[in-house]
């Protein structure tokens, strides 16, 4: 009798988590895949089975291809800029002084502000008529930009916002990574007559690679799912120049009520993010633990 109880106990323990996970993750994913083979408008009791039609239609849609391109472009730019600026910043901030502590806190603060507020704030900053940014440009004698209103600059403008928001977090993670490098190692390098750049390239960067890798993946997945800034600042415009995957799904699902079609796009997003996550975990298990 107690042996049966013992055997059941672990299942009972994980049951709550399992229930929540199934209800809010597994079931919606299954349902989404199911819907992607149907045509449905959210209201009608009838869901028409259409096979792969949704996918076929989507892949033939120029807008969808542009959306994919936008998403990829946005992601690559955000990840490169967010990690590429955070690392030198972290190296600079990795010091113990009141000033450095203040800057650390200051650049981290956007991370805890709601994305909606940030979007509204930046919409105002980037306003072509009376925005602060154009005012600044004017000070330096540069002609004003149209920021979000120009298809050529809109996506980059959103990248700037995303980088600004994630910079503090990325920097903080990098600082943690830097601090986990034993100081004796750098001293040993100094005694080995290593120049600062050599120490960085041959020692600090390799030691930091797990951190760097973690940040790249986290930012990659996050960027692919960008939604709030686009919904508030550009609504995918002008002329789809900032339309990305999640916003595309939202528009088709909740504005055009083409749930089947939106689900098919959702499946594509699932595949992309799923692949990235898989790569992450695969590499994570292989990553070297420097101890």
């Amino acid at each position: 009798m107690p042996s049966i109880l013992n055997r059941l106990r672990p299942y009972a323990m994980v049951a709550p988590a399992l229930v929540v996970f199934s209800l809010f993750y597994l079931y919606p994913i299954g349902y989404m895949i199911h819907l992607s083979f149907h045509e449905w408008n959210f209201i009608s009791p009838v869901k028409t089975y259409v096979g792969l039609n949704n996918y076929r239609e989507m892949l033939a849609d120029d807008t969808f291809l542009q959306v994919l391109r936008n998403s990829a472009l946005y992601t690559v730019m955000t990840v490169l800029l967010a990690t590429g600026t955070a690392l030198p910043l972290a190296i600079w901030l990795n010091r113990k002084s009141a000033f450095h502590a203040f800057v650390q806190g200051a650049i981290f603060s956007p991370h805890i502000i709601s994305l909606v507020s940030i979007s509204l704030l930046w919409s105002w900053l980037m306003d072509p008529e009376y925005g602060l940014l154009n005012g600044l440009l004017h000070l330096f004698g540069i002609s004003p930009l149209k920021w979000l209103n120009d298809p050529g600059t809109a996506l980059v403008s959103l990248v700037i916002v995303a980088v600004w928001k994630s910079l503090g977090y990325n920097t903080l993670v990098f600082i943690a990574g830097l601090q986990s490098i034993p100081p004796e190692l750098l001293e040993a390098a100094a005694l080995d007559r290593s120049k600062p750049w050599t120490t960085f390239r041959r020692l600090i960067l390799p030691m930091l690679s797990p951190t760097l890798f973690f940040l790249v993946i986290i930012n990659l997945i996050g960027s692919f799912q960008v939604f709030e800034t686009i919904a508030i600042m550009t609504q995918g415009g002008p002329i789809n120049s900032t339309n990305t995957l999640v916003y595309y799904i939202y528009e088709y699902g909740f504005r055009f009520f083409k749930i089947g079609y939106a689900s098919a796009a959702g499946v594509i997003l699932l595949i992309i993010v799923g692949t990235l996550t898989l790569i992450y975990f695969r590499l994570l298990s292989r990553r070297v633990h420097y101890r």
Partner: protein
Amino acid sequence: MARIELIDVVKRFKGETVIPNLNLTIREGSFTVLVGPSGCGKSTTLRMIAGLERQTSGDIRIDGELVNDTEPGKRDVAMVFQNYALYPNMTVRGNIEFGLKNRGVPKRERERLIRDICEIAGLTPYLDKKPQSLSGGQRQRVALARAMVKNPKVFILDEPLSNLDAKLRGQMRTELIELHKRLGTTFVYVTHDQVEAMSMGDRIVVMNKGEVMQAAPPMVLYEDPDNLFTAQFIGTPPMNVLPASRLPGLRTEGEGHAEFVGFRPEHALLSPETAELTREGLVIAGQIATRESLGAEQVYKLRCEAGSFFVKSFLNPYVGGDFALAVVPFERLYFFDRDGNRLRRLRAVRPQLAAAGV
């Protein structure tokens, strides 16, 4: 081979003085051990010699050359760290090669040097392994090889054996002594372990609170300590120290007033009865509190009126019950003044037979 001189060196950390004024000469080719309790400034001294820490004021010379403003890599100093500080992302070969590459040693020369050094250190089978797959002793050898391959003027070792288990530590101790003999380079070695210091160094610098208490060869420290600190730091168990005023049988002659009397545990003899022993030495009566038998030797802790003290004996275990008389030959007594300084001109007076009344 180089001589290291520290002249009027002061080190302060954020207003806290770690080393008030240090004058120390480390002889060329010596195996000098800096020893002292933690926080005594020995590691700081070491790091200042290596250039990892800059002295607040004062001069440091290596081989006669002023190195105050010389960066660590250019001082021709190699250091072995307590935790080895091997580059974890590089193989054993990469670790040894890194310093050579930075010095611009040509590839063929590098390969020869690495081959030779690994032959000596017994690392040849591990050349392409990463440090984390090596054992503690092997890592230690890699750290030594990395230091040796640079053929430095000075070897600096910061508690290099403290991460090893007791057996390996003993083995590495011998290897380091041999290594020093073979290389003839100046070794500066930091440890908090006086046994390690005594067994390895040909010169020991005892430090306390940033000051040199005594710098001398091991046996001089043991037999002729300058002060209470050194006397009590060296030896296991340390020198017994009792207040002179509470030892009734003691009379002294010479210069100075003895505040403390010290004697080595191994110089005291336990005896059950007084007899004529009082003529031979100072007799202290006490209760035996604990007995430790270490095989070849016995260590007793005795409690007497003046305090407690240890007696170490290489004879058969004491069988006289819990009460014992400890007899210390008069010439084995050390006298110290109130500040703990040794009173070398003070001697114990041998009591006249008539006056013997303990």
